[in-house]
């Protein structure tokens, strides 16, 4: 699926819920279903530190595609991370670099990606695009 298709799917999933708490229930489920990161990457080197929750991010390059794994100490953050990974992992570097990820906004979670938000997610997206750029240059 393309990035856009996965984004649309996510937006649809959230559209089913009206109440904010239900939406967050869904985010929690997504957080719990995030495949675990290899513990050896859960170190300071892979840490993206926000003010309040921590995010660890690792990326690999195989057959022209970038694969991300990640973790966080907060489950909501993990939920958002999980969505970002489902959208961007397994995509080509170019597609990742140009993704505008407006699904977060469409779902109504824009705040979580705001650079003034204290959870490191904005830096995480920056880091994901950086990985994509570096892999592209190397290939």
């Amino acid at each position, binding site marked *: 699926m393309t990035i856009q298709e996965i984004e649309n799917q996510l937006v649809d999933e959230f559209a089913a819920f009206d109440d*904010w708490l239900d939406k967050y229930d869904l985010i929690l489920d997504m957080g719990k279903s995030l495949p675990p990161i290899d513990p050896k990457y859960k170190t300071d080197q892979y840490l993206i530190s926000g003010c309040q929750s921590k995010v660890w991010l690792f990326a690999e390059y195989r057959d022209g595609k970038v694969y991300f794994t990640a973790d966080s100490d907060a489950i909501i953050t993990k939920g958002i991370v999980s969505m970002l990974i489902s959208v961007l992992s397994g995509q080509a570097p170019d597609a990742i670099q140009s993704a505008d990820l407006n699904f977060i906004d469409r779902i109504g979670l824009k705040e979580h990606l705001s650079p003034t938000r204290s959870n490191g997610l904005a830096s995480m997206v920056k880091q994901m695009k950086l990985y994509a750029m570096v892999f592209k240059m190397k290939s």
Partner: protein
Amino acid sequence: MPIDIQKVRADFPILSHTVYKRPLIYFDNAATTQKPLQVIKAISDYYENDNCNIHRGVHYLSMKATEAFEEARKEIREFINAPSTHEVVFTKGASESLNLVAASFGKKFLKPGDEVVTTIMEHHSNFVPWQIICEEKGAVLRVANILADGDLDTRHLYSLISEKTKIIALTHVSNVLGTINPLKEIIAHAHRMGVPVLVDGAQGVAHAKVDVSDLDCDFYCFSGHKMYGPMGIGVLYGKEKWLEELPPYQSGGEMVKDVRIERTTFNELPFKFEAGTPNVEGVTGLRAAVQYLKNIGMEEISLYEDRLLKRAVEGLSSISDMRFYGTAPEKASLVSFLIGDIHPFDAGTIIDKMGIAVRTGHHCAQPLIDHFGIPGTVRASFAFYNTADEIDRLTEAVSRVKRMFA
């Protein structure tokens, strides 16, 4: 007269707002308080009728603004019972007041090997400035511990005081734990050892009557915005003998007496410490806030907020796995907690979606949070415009969070 909560709430327009389609419950009062119409109106009135730069003008508006400014200083002197108006210095906030004393006191009095004593429960604004000036001057910062319930370990504090100690800088009330420190006892002890005491009153001044003469503290610092006044204004109270001795901090404007190319001499107190155009708006708003508080009565406010605290503690304690941080017997009206192992960011985000504003994280008191070895806490801090019903809604919200993350 007990607080008429409906009347009080009507004074605060923001309290009738809704967020996420739910009525706003504002429990972030330790970060900043909301403003009554009386303060908002004082600000508009000032700009619509009296706005002017002060002190040196000989024209009508300037004299009027100067008078208003100095009247506000009198009102604030009275509010904290400072001996004299020239011991009341206006700053932009508690942080600036604290930085001013750390910088000026340090410049004049700190030498290599000297020591400054503080506590592990300080807000960064009363910690980092001392850390920096100590490093600059080759002095040592000694940090007093707390007990298990969040009370200051005064025995440890006293053991840190020696002939090397030049000043003690500690908070009146911890913004994370709520702990109210036994200032009178500590100050008396310090004075017997010949050591002055600076008090960070940012969390102290809005919740109970503060009497700096009775406390006998050497400095007392606070912010307008945490006591129902405007942002951008704060106060440094300092004993005359200290303020006279300290070198000026910022310079320019009203704080000079005579500026020559070769050398400048400085104005008398309090102007010596008030560089630049003073914030007449802020001072006017702060005065309105003080009048508002006086009208309600600080004793009534304390009583009311204590009842809110009691209800919150009772309600939240009924939930299993709650971890409270700060359960000292003398405690201001706030609760810091974690819900089992749930990350404070997770809890805060969900509680917010229920329309309740709480703060999460380290609350600018990282040494304290590190001491507990946790990523932060959820903090609900109450004001006299909050209601018992709102407290119950918090308890429900916390239960809901617990269920969601189970």
